């Protein structure tokens, strides 16, 4: 299953243990199933990480480091290596991921295939911008090394290519130097979207990391309120690997624990707890970047039906009105999640063909799955996004209509042409075929 536990499409996995065994796995998948897909940690929310054939190649055991130059911060590792694995060796040596998403439990291959972004997108763009080269195994062409100057078309198509252009066997990335693993954070609440845009305009360029929490349940006068957070790595302090882990969610409740009541109550308390004045705190990187990693299996709180994440990007010109309209529609529905994230993306273009971020503002939040979502709420939100010239994030998606995808990602045909004929996901089948 994917991270959203929806759609419930059963998958069988064949485990890859060594890169040398991958050609044989591809050959047997071709013979028995006709198609397959590489699967990492399964942290994509929707169906982009699920094979159309129901048979994936589990890459997680390909988690060996290949080499590292700690003087220049260049690291090469097999594709199943997780960002957590990388941090464990890099942080004590004074290096950090140049770009990190909100969880460290994703694989290197997955980070490339989804061209993930993080709190510093306005400074450093997407993960793909820091990939120097990678090994790609294709069913039709065998082993290739892709880089900006070698197989450039496949290099671009694979970054954000949803795992469809071949199996990423290994990748070489450029890390970012840090003096300390502590982060100097800043938090301040805002009363409406106008204040958010003012804060973002003032502070984004001053800080490496910026993100905001927004109260998606707030309506009327309180609509658009939230908490703006920024941070920078401290210039002194320890360089310590962090790994907070609490017991986690032990089982999946029959119904979602997130509902209209719990949502309003939690969000109101959270907003009130935040400081109205700018508050500065120094802390570890783990709670700053990966708050939810401390709660294993948090995705279970949405119950057995699972949830869907909705992440949209609204271009700068329409950002204010577009985000306002999205939040209004969501608040009226009474649905949503404790964690709703607002973030301004910068102008650094990704080398990836189907990379999601563009200059603008992205809003992401989760919804417990129900029939109502796809019948009523999502069509309304999709219309707003379409109107504003925005787009949805394939890595998070389980509902996007094919025509919306093809319009928002005009380069999809180039990816279709470069797709490995043996690799096919439910997502790609849904939107491109």
């Amino acid at each position, binding site marked *: 299953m994917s991270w959203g536990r929806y759609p419930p499409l059963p998958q069988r996995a064949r485990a890859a243990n060594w*890169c040398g065994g991958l050609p044989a796995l591809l050959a047997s998948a071709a013979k028995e199933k006709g198609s397959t897909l590489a699967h990492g940690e399964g942290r994509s929310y929707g169906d982009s990480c699920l094979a159309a054939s129901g048979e994936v190649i589990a890459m997680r055991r390909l988690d*060996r480091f290949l080499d590292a130059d700690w003087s220049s911060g260049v690291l090469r590792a097999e594709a199943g290596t997780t960002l957590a694995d990388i941090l464990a*060796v890099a942080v004590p040596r004074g290096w950090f991921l140049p770009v990190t998403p909100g969880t460290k439990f994703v694989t290197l291959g997955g980070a490339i295939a989804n061209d993930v972004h993080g709190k510093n997108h306005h400074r450093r763009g997407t993960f793909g911008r820091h990939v120097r080269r990678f090994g790609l195994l294709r069913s039709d062409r065998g082993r290739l090394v892709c880089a900006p100057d070698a197989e450039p078309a496949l290099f671009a198509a694979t970054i954000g290519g949803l795992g469809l252009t071949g199996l990423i066997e290994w990748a070489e990335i450029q890390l970012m130097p840090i003096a300390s693993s502590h982060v100097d954070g800043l938090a301040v609440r805002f009363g409406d979207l106008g204040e958010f845009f003012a804060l973002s305009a003032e502070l984004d360029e001053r800080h490496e990391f910026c993100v905001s929490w927004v109260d998606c349940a707030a309506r009327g006068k309180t609509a658009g309120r939230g908490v703006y957070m920024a941070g920078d790595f401290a210039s002194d302090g320890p360089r310590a690997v962090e790994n907070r882990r609490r017991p986690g969610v032990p089982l999946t409740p029959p119904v979602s624990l997130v509902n209209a009541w719990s949502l309003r109550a939690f969000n109101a308390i959270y907003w009130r707890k935040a400081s109205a004045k700018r508050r500065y705190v120094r802390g570890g990187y783990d709670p700053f970047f990966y708050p939810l990693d401390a709660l294993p299996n948090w995705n279970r709180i949405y119950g057995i039906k699972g949830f869907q994440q909705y992440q949209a990007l609204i271009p700068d010109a329409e950002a204010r009105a577009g985000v306002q309209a999205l939040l209004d529609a969501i608040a009226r529905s009474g649905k949503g999640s404790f964690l709703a994230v607002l973030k301004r993306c910068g102008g650094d273009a990704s080398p990836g063909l189907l990379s999601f971020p563009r200059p603008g503002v992205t809003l992401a939040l989760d919804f417990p799955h129900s029939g109502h979502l796809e019948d009523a709420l999502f069509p309304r939100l999709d219309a707003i996004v379409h109107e504003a010239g925005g787009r949805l994030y394939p890595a998070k998606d389980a509902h996007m209509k094919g025509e919306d995808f093809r319009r928002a990602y005009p380069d999809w045909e180039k990816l279709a042409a470069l797709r490995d004929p043996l690799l096919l996901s439910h997502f790609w089948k849904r939107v491109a075929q």
Partner: protein
Amino acid sequence: MKRILIVGATSAIAMACARLWAAEGARFFLAARDAEKLAALAGDLRVRGADVASFQMDANDVAAHAGMIEQAFQAWQGLDIALIAHGTLPDQSACERDAALTLREFSTNGLSAIALLTSLANRFERQQGGALAVITSVAGDRGRPSNYVYGSAKAAVSVFCEGLRARLSRAGVALTDIRPGFVATPMTQGLPLPKRLTATPEAVAKRIVAGIARKADVLYAPFFWFPIMLAIRCIPGALFKRMKL
């Protein structure tokens, strides 16, 4: 920094142990059959901060043992730990039809380990210290119709260890007999293992590394196999032969 020899270093449990040791700071001498896998593992451990030397060898090639052990002792001027971790999971029904295959599997899982222990024991005895460890199996505790070739080979190693341990203890050398239960590794891939009883190589490795450090004699991994196997060993033979195991 611990100086560690691992035979069968590319097995999943051995690799997981090596990573834990590497995190503490270690110098490795790795022996395994497949040069490509060996190189990949060596690279991984180097990035994790370890020093690594490696040696390509088939454990069944007993003639090669002496040279390998010699090099291992020379590489880092002595050894603190030697872990014997190689093995296969024989196809029991194929073994039943083929005596030569049975002996081959017995050699891989039993005799080759006994040969290595014999040579290593003498070196460690002379060194007057260090820890030997060998991965056997809970399958060696009782012969079951479904895999008694594997089980009896591991049982031979376990009994060999029991005697050798007593001898080595006089020289201050520890010998740990590691008996894992079901572990999700390439060796057991495709087997219908009971999910609740199946451990990850990482969990088993944690217990092994801690067990070797405290010089445990017999180490069931995970721990819950100790009471399970205690109970299974108590089942009378007359009843045991009628059970489907």
